[in-house]
């Protein structure tokens, strides 16, 4: 067997991947189902000469992240839905002040205190800007633990490249499950490029002061700032869109992300074994949303079934990407209930029957 494979829990896999990516600072606050992540950081970061600190609240944690990011280090925080709601103000400030950081959300059922079971009901909050103002952040939705590790590692690069927050959108299953993974090399943060803009103190080396700020009282200046941000978001769209398509020659497609996509793959295989021409579009970046994946299928695709552990959120983006010509059906679950492969394939069979597709 592969000597480098390790059987690890999702929450611990993210933590180790972040440490490998050169993250040495973590600020968080307890919440189920992501508690193993901070617990891991509480010994791992000191071991690597870094800092783990439990904040008094998620509000404090995200602002500690703001401070550390502004000071020029790789930094991360993690939480689950109610805690992520509290972080929204901070995320808006991070985006407004152009600060790189990584935020992990192991989503649980909502709204309010909801449940602690897995869900995908924070899609809108994550991708449409849960905080105020015209901002965007890259949102990545891995569907297995190896992808979780790889995307966590990469998310620090993306954050630094654009000086922008990046979110890893997992769920309770992803945090709690164990699967074999292979970790990338441990990166020494000293080898990373210096962030000239960071508030490190002038240190006698520069004349200009560095300022981390999102206040632009002058309307023209604020508009200009937003245009600059807008240009950055356009570049993210161009370079950071990620997706996977299974069976590019199919007639009907599922669209699903994260844990749900794994379950959909099972339904997909059983349908194909029965002769149906079905495939899957799996957005990996949820923002930027992979419109082009849907565009690339426009010639052949005759309909979609969107599957989510929510009451229907990503389905709106799929409808925008697909347009009004094709049927886009939805099947979802909420509160921590998992969609069942047979319900998923039934939904697809119904669509195919209605549209008059063939086996």
């Amino acid at each position, binding site marked *: 067997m592969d000597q480098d494979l390790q059987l690890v829990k999702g929450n611990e896999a993210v933590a180790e991947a972040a440490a490998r990516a050169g993250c040495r600072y973590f600020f968080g606050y307890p919440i189920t189902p992501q508690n193993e992540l901070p*617990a891991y950081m*509480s010994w791992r970061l000191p071991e690597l000469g870094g800092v783990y600190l439990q904040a*008094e609240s998620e509000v404090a944690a995200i602002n500690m992240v703001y401070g550390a990011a502004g000071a020029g280090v790789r930094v991360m925080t993690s939480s689950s839905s109610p805690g992520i709601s509290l972080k929204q103000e901070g995320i808006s400030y991070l985006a407004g002040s152009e600060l790189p950081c990584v935020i992990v959300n192991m989503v649980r059922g909502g709204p309010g205190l909801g449940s602690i079971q897995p869900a995908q009901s924070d899609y809108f909050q994550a991708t449409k800007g849960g905080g105020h103002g015209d901002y965007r952040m890259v949102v990545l939705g891995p569907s297995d633990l190896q992808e979780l590790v790889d995307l966590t590692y990469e998310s620090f690069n993306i954050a630094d490249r654009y000086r922008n927050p990046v979110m890893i959108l997992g769920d309770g299953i992803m945090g709690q499950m164990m699967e074999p993974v292979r970790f990338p090399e441990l990166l020494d943060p000293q080898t990373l490029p210096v962030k000239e803009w960071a508030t490190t103190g002038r240190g006698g080396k520069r004349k200009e002061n560095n300022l981390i700020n999102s206040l632009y009282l002058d309307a023209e200046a604020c508009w200009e700032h937003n245009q600059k941000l807008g240009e950055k978001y356009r570049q993210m769209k161009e370079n950071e869109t990620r997706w996977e398509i299974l069976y590019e020659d199919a007639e009907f497609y599922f669209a699903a992300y994260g844990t749900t996509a794994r379950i959909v793959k099972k339904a997909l295989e059983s349908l194909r074994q029965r002769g149906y021409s079905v495939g899957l579009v799996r957005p990996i970046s949820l923002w930027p949303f992979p419109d082009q994946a849907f565009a690339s299928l426009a010639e052949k695709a005759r309909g979609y079934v969107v599957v989510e552990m929510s009451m229907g959120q990503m389905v709106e983006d799929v409808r925008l990407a697909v347009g009004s010509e094709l049927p886009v059906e939805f099947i979802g679950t909420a509160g921590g209930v998992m969609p069942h492969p047979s319900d998923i394939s039934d939904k697809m069979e119904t669509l195919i029957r209605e549209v008059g597709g063939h086996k």
Partner: protein
Amino acid sequence: MKAVFTRPQALSDQATHYCPGCLHGIAHRLVAEALDELDLTERAVGVASVGCSVFTYNYFDCDFQQAAHGRAPAVATGIKRARPDSIVFTYQGDGDLASIGAAEAMHAASRGEKITVIFINNAIYGMTGGQMAPTTLEGQRTTTSPSGRDVSLTGHPLRMSEMLQGLPGVAYLARVSCHDVKHIRQAKQSVQKAFEVQREGLGFAMVELLSNCPTNWGMTPGESLKWLEENMIPYYPIGELKTPEAVTDHGE
């Protein structure tokens, strides 16, 4: 132990979900007995916080609201301002009250909000599986202080009652313990006073109950009571920190 064979009226007949030996159950009983004895249950509105006690609304036989983590004193403020005749109490753990909700507790106290706060200090986060709380003692091991709380990194355990003591809005403040019969009896007096203070409209009242968490302390219930007595009480001294004269002394 004082033999109390009947269930206070203010408690419902639901079995609680607490771990064996957890003192949350005793604390519930003290609150319910105070409501019964002062005949306040019909006017009572409880505010459940986020922690192991989140389901208190199932255990008390009175109206309830469930609040976001740490915000119970703000929710209680809203209720009391809207319905000044109601008897409003919060029931909060130390993570809820002393960490994420420190500001809400502080400002409700500072405004002299006429509410009763029941503050359960068990030196740990119970519900989420045993993380460090602001009240965790120096050297105490938790899942997020695996080699013991290092006060040079995380500060000293927070004495919430002492912090609130100086605020003029606070009318009644006591720290009690539930680790043995004698102390439970004392605790009962204090909880009762904290509701009387509200009934008389004298200001903010809080009782801090030292409690346990055998599950996350990794102890048997018996060991946990001993640990509470030997470790928590020396750091969190028990007694009344503030009493208004207008409240009757139930003294024994």
